[in-house]
């Protein structure tokens, strides 16, 4: 009888995890934006076409974004960004490959928020660096939303800013990643 009880208990724990073992989520409309703020100038750019695939059980997550897809308020900023800073003809994509820790705890059938951590390799301008951040995941009415903020040093990615405009661009750039609704793959 005791063993049977344990058997039942084990079943209730294992089953919910096993049920989502194969769940893969994706989006083609992730929003990736960045912000550089200095007393002289605010620079903001947004890209609404981020691709992401996230395997819930293992927590493996990938993002890819096209550098030429970033839209700026001013044309000159966009041109400088593409031609001089990230050299998007040579390096058309930025990618992130990493892991969301405890991703297997996220249940898709209950309204709940999760504060998890993620880390992995961010590749930009041909250079890969480890980044880590916290990720807010909100499950509501079966919709899965995720958001994360982190910052990078331009020097880490060998992005050179000419001295003439060095005061206009912050050496540390804030990056925001938002997926409004992951879909099942």
């Amino acid at each position, binding site marked *: 009888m005791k063993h049977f009880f344990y058997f039942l208990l084990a079943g209730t724990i294992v089953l919910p995890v096993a049920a989502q073992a194969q769940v893969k989520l994706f989006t*083609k*409309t992730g929003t990736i934006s960045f912000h550089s703020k200095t007393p002289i100038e605010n620079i903001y750019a947004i890209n609404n076409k981020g691709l992401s695939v996230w395997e819930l059980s293992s927590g493996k997550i990938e993002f890819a974004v096209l550098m030429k897809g970033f839209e700026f308020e001013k044309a000159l900023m966009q041109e400088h960004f593409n031609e001089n800073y990230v050299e998007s003809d040579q390096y058309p994509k930025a990618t992130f490959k990493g892991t969301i820790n405890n991703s297997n705890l996220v249940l898709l059938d209950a309204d709940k928020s999760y504060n998890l951590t993620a880390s992995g390799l961010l590749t930009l301008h041909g250079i890969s660096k480890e980044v880590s951040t916290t990720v807010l995941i909100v499950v509501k009415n079966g919709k899965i939303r995720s958001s994360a903020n982190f910052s990078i040093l331009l020097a880490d990615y060998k992005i050179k800013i000419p001295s003439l405009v060095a005061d206009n661009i912050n050496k540390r750039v804030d990056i925001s990643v938002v997926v*409004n609704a992951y879909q099942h793959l």
Partner: protein
Amino acid sequence: MVVLAVAWAYREFNRKPAGLGNSQPAFVLSDQQLLQSYEENEEAANKNYLGKIVQVTGKVYEVVNQGDSATTIVIGNEQAMHKVSCLLQQDAATQVNKISKNELVTLKGICTGFLMDVELNQCVIVEIK
């Protein structure tokens, strides 16, 4: 002279990204031709198309509204893994309600590269057939 130079600098500094309304495309092709060149060799295709105005014609697979006036028209074959994803320029988004699935459309936009789909930005609708 100085005044003119300052005026030019001011305009240049505040210049908005140009709309594609009257711009001539560098390439005119079908969605399948564009997809094929990316599927065959992404790097070579990028050399051709990246940053250029590309005009494509194909069947509408879906229209995606992301809110905040970001609207995408996806063209391509229903079963195909890769499609052509055209993010509309804001003022073109008003024309979208005229477009339905499987309709043949011609769009032009700036090619930004290849993820799951070939991506075109700042798209305007040239023709709905």
